[in-house]
């Protein structure tokens, strides 16, 4: 029996094989959206948990496991942004880009994070993936389960809100 068929039948060893094969890719994808290492690790486990629970619904013969997994991981990350929306601005534990004026850059970064936190989770996810991570629109569309045009609309709306928010605090891109 093929690996995916064994997974769909509930074989834990097959699931472990798939987990080890895809965990880094899922972590990196979630990291692109939530931008916090510890959170991305927790959400990676959550994504695979959802995958394991939904295994019976996966078409092991003709299904695209990687695409299905990425879509679930995206939903997990967006759900997280939704839950934490009112608590904190976008978390960020990545090192900043080196510059000759670190104080100024830190302030700019704070303002951008603040502006990003004003976006709805759906718009924020699309903006981060398209503009910061430069993921192709086709891949974003597949991960979000929407059309390429819908992704473009989300990015457009997100950019409009971001520009407005940044202009309000005196930042003019």
């Amino acid at each position: 029996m093929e690996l995916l068929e064994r997974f769909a039948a509930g074989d834990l060893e097959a699931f472990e094989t798939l987990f080890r094969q895809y965990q880094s890719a899922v972590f990196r994808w979630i990291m692109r959206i939530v931008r916090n290492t510890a959170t991305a690790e927790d959400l990676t486990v959550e994504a695979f948990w959802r995958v394991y629970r939904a295994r019976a619904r996966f078409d092991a013969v003709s299904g695209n496991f990687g695409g299905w997994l990425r879509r679930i991981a995206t939903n997990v990350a967006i759900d997280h942004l939704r839950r934490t929306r009112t608590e904190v601005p976008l978390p960020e534990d990545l090192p900043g880009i080196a510059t000759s004026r670190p104080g100024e850059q830190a302030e700019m970064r704070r303002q951008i994070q603040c502006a990003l936190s004003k976006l709805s989770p759906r718009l924020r996810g699309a903006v981060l993936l398209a503009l910061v991570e430069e993921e192709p629109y086709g891949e974003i569309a597949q991960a979000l389960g929407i059309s390429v045009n819908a992704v473009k609309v989300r990015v457009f709306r997100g950019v409009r809100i971001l520009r407005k928010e940044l202009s309000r605090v005196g930042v003019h891109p």
Partner: protein
Amino acid sequence: MNEREIAELKKLLKDTLPPAGDAELRRDLWPAMLRRLDERPVRVPWWDWALLAGVIALFCFFPGIIPALLYQL
């Protein structure tokens, strides 16, 4: 708003926020996954079921209160 404005904002975002896509996983997450799989599903206490049964029984015996409740919502 045009493509130029999107490109300008993109440049500002990229200059300020480093891409996160190259982040490396610091540890194997399989042990955490196993712990998650071993977690028991949340059990609903028996009194919650009793309360639900009571509410259903109330609606069955006194259906007239349903529109009154809906009006209050």
